[in-house]
Protein backbone atom coordinates (compact mmCIF):
# COMPACT_ATOMS: atom_id res chain seq x y z
CA UNK A 1 0.00 0.00 0.00
CA UNK A 2 2.91 2.25 0.65
CA UNK A 3 3.67 2.14 -2.98
CA UNK A 4 0.26 3.54 -3.79
CA UNK A 5 0.61 6.33 -1.31
CA UNK A 6 4.11 7.38 -2.23
CA UNK A 7 3.50 7.27 -5.93
CA UNK A 8 -0.02 8.55 -5.81
CA UNK A 9 0.63 11.46 -8.17
CA UNK A 10 2.29 9.20 -10.74
CA UNK A 11 -0.39 6.57 -10.61
CA UNK A 12 -3.08 9.16 -10.90
CA UNK A 13 -1.37 10.75 -13.86
CA UNK A 14 -0.88 7.48 -15.69
CA UNK A 15 -4.46 6.40 -15.08
CA UNK A 16 -5.75 9.71 -16.34
CA UNK A 17 -3.37 9.68 -19.30
CA UNK A 18 -4.43 6.22 -20.37
CA UNK A 19 -8.08 7.14 -20.04
CA UNK A 20 -7.59 10.35 -21.98
CA UNK A 21 -5.90 8.55 -24.82
CA UNK A 22 -8.54 5.84 -24.73
CA UNK A 23 -11.20 8.52 -25.02
CA UNK A 24 -9.35 10.07 -27.93
CA UNK A 25 -9.12 6.75 -29.71
CA UNK A 26 -12.80 6.30 -29.07
CA UNK A 27 -13.53 9.49 -30.99
CA UNK A 28 -11.60 8.03 -33.89
CA UNK A 29 -13.05 4.58 -34.02
CA UNK A 30 -16.70 4.85 -32.97
CA UNK A 31 -18.80 4.83 -36.06
CA UNK A 32 -21.79 6.42 -34.47
CA UNK A 33 -21.41 10.16 -33.92
CA UNK A 34 -23.27 9.91 -30.65
CA UNK A 35 -20.82 7.38 -29.30
CA UNK A 36 -17.95 9.45 -30.57
CA UNK A 37 -19.39 12.52 -28.90
CA UNK A 38 -19.75 10.70 -25.59
CA UNK A 39 -16.20 9.46 -25.90
CA UNK A 40 -15.11 13.03 -26.54
CA UNK A 41 -16.99 14.21 -23.48
CA UNK A 42 -15.15 11.60 -21.46
CA UNK A 43 -11.85 12.86 -22.82
CA UNK A 44 -12.75 16.42 -21.89
CA UNK A 45 -13.46 15.43 -18.31
CA UNK A 46 -10.19 13.50 -18.08
CA UNK A 47 -8.28 16.46 -19.44
CA UNK A 48 -10.00 18.64 -16.90
CA UNK A 49 -8.77 16.32 -14.17
CA UNK A 50 -5.28 16.61 -15.59
CA UNK A 51 -5.63 20.39 -15.37
CA UNK A 52 -6.36 20.04 -11.70
CA UNK A 53 -3.18 18.01 -11.30
CA UNK A 54 -1.35 20.91 -12.88
CA UNK A 55 -2.73 23.42 -10.42
CA UNK A 56 -4.99 25.02 -12.96
CA UNK A 57 -8.19 24.83 -11.01
CA UNK A 58 -9.99 27.55 -12.91
CA UNK A 59 -9.11 26.03 -16.24
CA UNK A 60 -10.33 22.66 -15.02
CA UNK A 61 -13.64 24.16 -14.11
CA UNK A 62 -13.87 26.13 -17.35
CA UNK A 63 -13.00 23.01 -19.30
CA UNK A 64 -15.85 21.07 -17.74
CA UNK A 65 -18.29 23.93 -18.07
CA UNK A 66 -17.51 25.20 -21.53
CA UNK A 67 -16.49 21.99 -23.25
CA UNK A 68 -18.43 19.46 -21.25
CA UNK A 69 -21.43 21.70 -20.86
CA UNK A 70 -21.54 24.07 -23.79
CA UNK A 71 -19.75 22.65 -26.76
CA UNK A 72 -20.75 19.08 -26.11
CA UNK A 73 -24.39 19.97 -25.81
CA UNK A 74 -24.04 21.86 -29.06
CA UNK A 75 -22.60 18.79 -30.71
CA UNK A 76 -25.29 16.48 -29.42
CA UNK A 77 -27.89 19.03 -30.36
CA UNK A 78 -26.65 19.19 -33.93
CA UNK A 79 -26.41 15.43 -34.14
CA UNK A 80 -30.01 15.17 -33.07
CA UNK A 81 -31.05 18.04 -35.31
CA UNK A 82 -29.64 16.61 -38.50
CA UNK A 83 -30.71 13.17 -37.34
CA UNK A 84 -27.85 11.28 -38.89
CA UNK A 85 -29.86 8.10 -39.27
CA UNK A 86 -32.32 9.59 -41.71
CA UNK A 87 -29.56 10.80 -43.98
CA UNK A 88 -28.27 8.77 -46.89
CA UNK A 89 -26.70 5.66 -45.37
CA UNK A 90 -22.98 6.03 -44.82
CA UNK A 91 -21.19 3.39 -46.75
CA UNK A 92 -17.79 4.20 -45.44
CA UNK A 93 -16.83 6.02 -42.35
CA UNK A 94 -13.21 6.41 -43.31
CA UNK A 95 -12.00 8.66 -46.09
CA UNK A 96 -10.28 7.08 -49.03
CA UNK A 97 -6.86 8.33 -48.03
CA UNK A 98 -7.12 6.70 -44.63
CA UNK A 99 -4.03 4.45 -44.72
CA UNK A 100 -1.80 7.20 -45.98
CA UNK A 101 -3.33 9.67 -43.58
CA UNK A 102 -2.70 7.42 -40.61
CA UNK A 103 0.87 7.02 -41.73
CA UNK A 104 1.15 10.78 -42.09
CA UNK A 105 -0.18 11.37 -38.60
CA UNK A 106 2.03 8.78 -36.98
CA UNK A 107 5.00 10.02 -38.95
CA UNK A 108 4.52 13.56 -37.77
CA UNK A 109 4.03 12.32 -34.22
CA UNK A 110 7.21 10.29 -34.28
CA UNK A 111 9.15 13.16 -35.74
CA UNK A 112 7.91 15.59 -33.13
CA UNK A 113 8.71 13.03 -30.46
CA UNK A 114 12.19 12.99 -31.85
CA UNK A 115 12.39 16.72 -31.72
CA UNK A 116 11.45 16.38 -28.08
CA UNK A 117 14.03 13.72 -27.39
CA UNK A 118 16.82 15.55 -29.14
CA UNK A 119 15.74 18.99 -28.06
CA UNK A 120 15.92 20.25 -24.54
CA UNK A 121 13.68 18.04 -22.50
CA UNK A 122 11.40 19.82 -20.13
CA UNK A 123 12.19 18.01 -16.96
CA UNK A 124 11.48 19.31 -13.49
CA UNK A 125 8.30 20.90 -12.27
CA UNK A 126 7.14 23.99 -10.49
CA UNK A 127 5.14 23.95 -7.30
CA UNK A 128 2.14 25.89 -8.42
CA UNK A 129 2.44 28.72 -5.94
CA UNK A 130 3.23 31.20 -8.61
CA UNK A 131 -0.02 30.30 -10.30
CA UNK A 132 -1.92 31.51 -7.26
CA UNK A 133 0.10 34.59 -6.62
CA UNK A 134 -0.23 38.09 -7.91
CA UNK A 135 1.96 40.90 -6.68
CA UNK A 136 3.38 38.79 -3.85
CA UNK A 137 0.02 37.93 -2.35
CA UNK A 138 -1.20 34.34 -2.57
CA UNK A 139 -4.80 34.77 -3.55
CA UNK A 140 -5.85 31.66 -5.45
CA UNK A 141 -5.80 30.61 -9.05
CA UNK A 142 -9.09 32.13 -10.16
CA UNK A 143 -8.32 35.53 -8.71
CA UNK A 144 -4.81 35.41 -10.09
CA UNK A 145 -6.03 34.70 -13.57
CA UNK A 146 -8.65 37.35 -13.25
CA UNK A 147 -6.08 39.88 -12.16
CA UNK A 148 -3.84 39.12 -15.08
CA UNK A 149 -6.60 38.74 -17.62
CA UNK A 150 -8.15 42.10 -16.89
CA UNK A 151 -4.89 44.01 -16.75
CA UNK A 152 -2.08 42.70 -18.90
CA UNK A 153 -4.28 40.81 -21.35
CA UNK A 154 -7.18 43.23 -21.46
CA UNK A 155 -6.91 44.07 -25.15
CA UNK A 156 -6.70 40.47 -26.38
CA UNK A 157 -9.56 39.65 -24.07
CA UNK A 158 -11.72 42.27 -25.69
CA UNK A 159 -10.73 41.14 -29.16
CA UNK A 160 -11.62 37.56 -28.34
CA UNK A 161 -15.02 38.66 -27.19
CA UNK A 162 -15.52 40.29 -30.58
CA UNK A 163 -14.44 37.06 -32.23
CA UNK A 164 -17.06 35.21 -30.24
CA UNK A 165 -19.70 37.73 -31.30
CA UNK A 166 -18.75 37.38 -34.95
CA UNK A 167 -18.83 33.61 -34.65
CA UNK A 168 -22.23 33.78 -33.09
CA UNK A 169 -23.56 35.95 -35.90
CA UNK A 170 -21.94 33.65 -38.43
CA UNK A 171 -23.51 30.58 -36.90
CA UNK A 172 -26.90 32.23 -36.98
CA UNK A 173 -26.48 33.17 -40.62
CA UNK A 174 -25.55 29.60 -41.52
CA UNK A 175 -28.36 28.22 -39.46
CA UNK A 176 -31.10 30.25 -41.12
CA UNK A 177 -33.36 28.45 -43.51
CA UNK A 178 -32.42 30.67 -46.43
CA UNK A 179 -28.75 30.19 -45.71
CA UNK A 180 -26.06 29.10 -48.05
CA UNK A 181 -26.58 29.89 -51.64
CA UNK A 182 -29.41 32.34 -51.57
CA UNK A 183 -28.54 35.19 -49.29
CA UNK A 184 -30.43 38.20 -50.55
CA UNK A 185 -29.98 41.22 -48.43
CA UNK A 186 -30.78 39.23 -45.35
CA UNK A 187 -28.39 37.99 -42.74
CA UNK A 188 -26.34 41.11 -42.65
CA UNK A 189 -27.73 42.66 -39.54
CA UNK A 190 -29.34 39.84 -37.68
Amino acid at each position, binding site marked *: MDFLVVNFAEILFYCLAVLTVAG*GIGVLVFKSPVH*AALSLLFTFVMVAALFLL*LHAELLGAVQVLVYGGGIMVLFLFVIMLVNVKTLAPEQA*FLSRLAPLAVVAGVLLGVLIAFA*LIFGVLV*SGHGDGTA*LRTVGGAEIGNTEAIGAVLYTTYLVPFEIVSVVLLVAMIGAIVFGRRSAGLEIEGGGGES
Partner: protein
Amino acid sequence: MIDATHYVVLSLILFCLGLIGVMVRRNFITVLMSLELMFNAVNLNLIAFSFRLSDLAGQVLAIFVITVAAAEAAIGLGLIIALVRLKDTVALDEADVMRG
Protein backbone atom coordinates in the same frame (compact mmCIF):
# COMPACT_ATOMS: atom_id res chain seq x y z
CA MET B 1 8.38 11.73 -10.80
CA ILE B 2 5.95 13.17 -13.27
CA ASP B 3 7.39 16.21 -14.94
CA ALA B 4 6.33 18.39 -17.80
CA THR B 5 7.71 15.96 -20.38
CA HIS B 6 5.04 13.45 -19.55
CA TYR B 7 2.36 15.99 -20.13
CA VAL B 8 3.92 17.13 -23.35
CA VAL B 9 4.10 13.59 -24.64
CA LEU B 10 0.49 12.98 -23.63
CA SER B 11 -0.49 16.15 -25.39
CA LEU B 12 1.45 15.06 -28.48
CA ILE B 13 -0.38 11.73 -28.56
CA LEU B 14 -3.71 13.47 -28.17
CA PHE B 15 -2.83 15.94 -30.87
CA CYS B 16 -1.85 13.23 -33.31
CA LEU B 17 -5.02 11.31 -32.57
CA GLY B 18 -6.99 14.42 -33.35
CA LEU B 19 -4.94 15.04 -36.47
CA ILE B 20 -5.51 11.54 -37.74
CA GLY B 21 -9.18 11.88 -36.92
CA VAL B 22 -9.41 15.05 -38.96
CA MET B 23 -7.79 13.31 -41.89
CA VAL B 24 -9.50 9.95 -41.87
CA ARG B 25 -13.09 10.43 -40.78
CA ARG B 26 -15.67 11.19 -43.40
CA ASN B 27 -18.32 12.39 -41.04
CA PHE B 28 -18.07 16.14 -40.74
CA ILE B 29 -19.28 16.05 -37.16
CA THR B 30 -16.60 13.64 -36.07
CA VAL B 31 -14.02 15.69 -37.90
CA LEU B 32 -15.07 18.66 -35.80
CA MET B 33 -14.82 16.54 -32.68
CA SER B 34 -11.31 15.54 -33.64
CA LEU B 35 -10.55 19.19 -34.04
CA GLU B 36 -11.72 19.77 -30.49
CA LEU B 37 -9.41 16.99 -29.45
CA MET B 38 -6.52 18.87 -30.99
CA PHE B 39 -7.52 22.04 -29.17
CA ASN B 40 -7.52 20.10 -25.95
CA ALA B 41 -4.07 18.77 -26.65
CA VAL B 42 -2.84 22.30 -27.18
CA ASN B 43 -4.42 23.44 -23.94
CA LEU B 44 -2.82 20.61 -22.06
CA ASN B 45 0.53 21.60 -23.46
CA LEU B 46 0.04 25.25 -22.55
CA ILE B 47 -0.96 24.47 -19.03
CA ALA B 48 1.82 21.97 -18.53
CA PHE B 49 4.29 24.65 -19.47
CA SER B 50 2.53 27.22 -17.37
CA PHE B 51 3.04 24.87 -14.44
CA ARG B 52 6.63 24.12 -15.33
CA LEU B 53 7.63 27.71 -15.86
CA SER B 54 5.40 29.07 -13.10
CA ASP B 55 3.93 31.55 -15.47
CA LEU B 56 0.26 32.42 -15.64
CA ALA B 57 0.47 33.44 -19.28
CA GLY B 58 -0.02 29.83 -20.32
CA GLN B 59 -3.32 29.58 -18.53
CA VAL B 60 -4.51 32.87 -19.90
CA LEU B 61 -3.64 31.68 -23.36
CA ALA B 62 -5.54 28.47 -22.71
CA ILE B 63 -8.60 30.51 -21.87
CA PHE B 64 -8.30 32.29 -25.19
CA VAL B 65 -7.94 28.94 -26.94
CA ILE B 66 -11.09 27.66 -25.26
CA THR B 67 -12.92 30.77 -26.38
CA VAL B 68 -11.77 30.40 -29.94
CA ALA B 69 -12.61 26.70 -29.83
CA ALA B 70 -16.10 27.56 -28.77
CA ALA B 71 -16.41 30.00 -31.63
CA GLU B 72 -15.04 27.40 -34.03
CA ALA B 73 -17.50 24.80 -32.80
CA ALA B 74 -20.37 27.18 -33.31
CA ILE B 75 -19.34 28.05 -36.86
CA GLY B 76 -18.49 24.46 -37.71
CA LEU B 77 -21.79 23.13 -36.49
CA GLY B 78 -23.56 25.90 -38.37
CA LEU B 79 -21.72 24.74 -41.48
CA ILE B 80 -22.87 21.20 -40.87
CA ILE B 81 -26.45 22.29 -40.73
CA ALA B 82 -25.98 24.24 -43.95
CA LEU B 83 -24.34 21.23 -45.58
CA VAL B 84 -27.14 18.93 -44.52
CA ARG B 85 -29.71 21.32 -45.92
CA LEU B 86 -27.84 21.67 -49.16
CA LYS B 87 -26.66 18.13 -49.85
CA ASP B 88 -28.48 16.00 -47.34
CA THR B 89 -25.28 14.48 -46.06
CA VAL B 90 -22.64 14.99 -43.41
CA ALA B 91 -19.86 13.39 -45.42
CA LEU B 92 -17.05 15.86 -45.74
CA ASP B 93 -16.00 14.75 -49.18
CA GLU B 94 -19.42 15.55 -50.56
CA ALA B 95 -18.69 19.18 -49.88
CA ASP B 96 -16.83 19.67 -53.09
CA VAL B 97 -18.68 22.44 -54.85
CA MET B 98 -15.48 24.43 -54.97
CA ARG B 99 -13.60 21.61 -56.61
CA GLY B 100 -11.61 22.80 -59.58
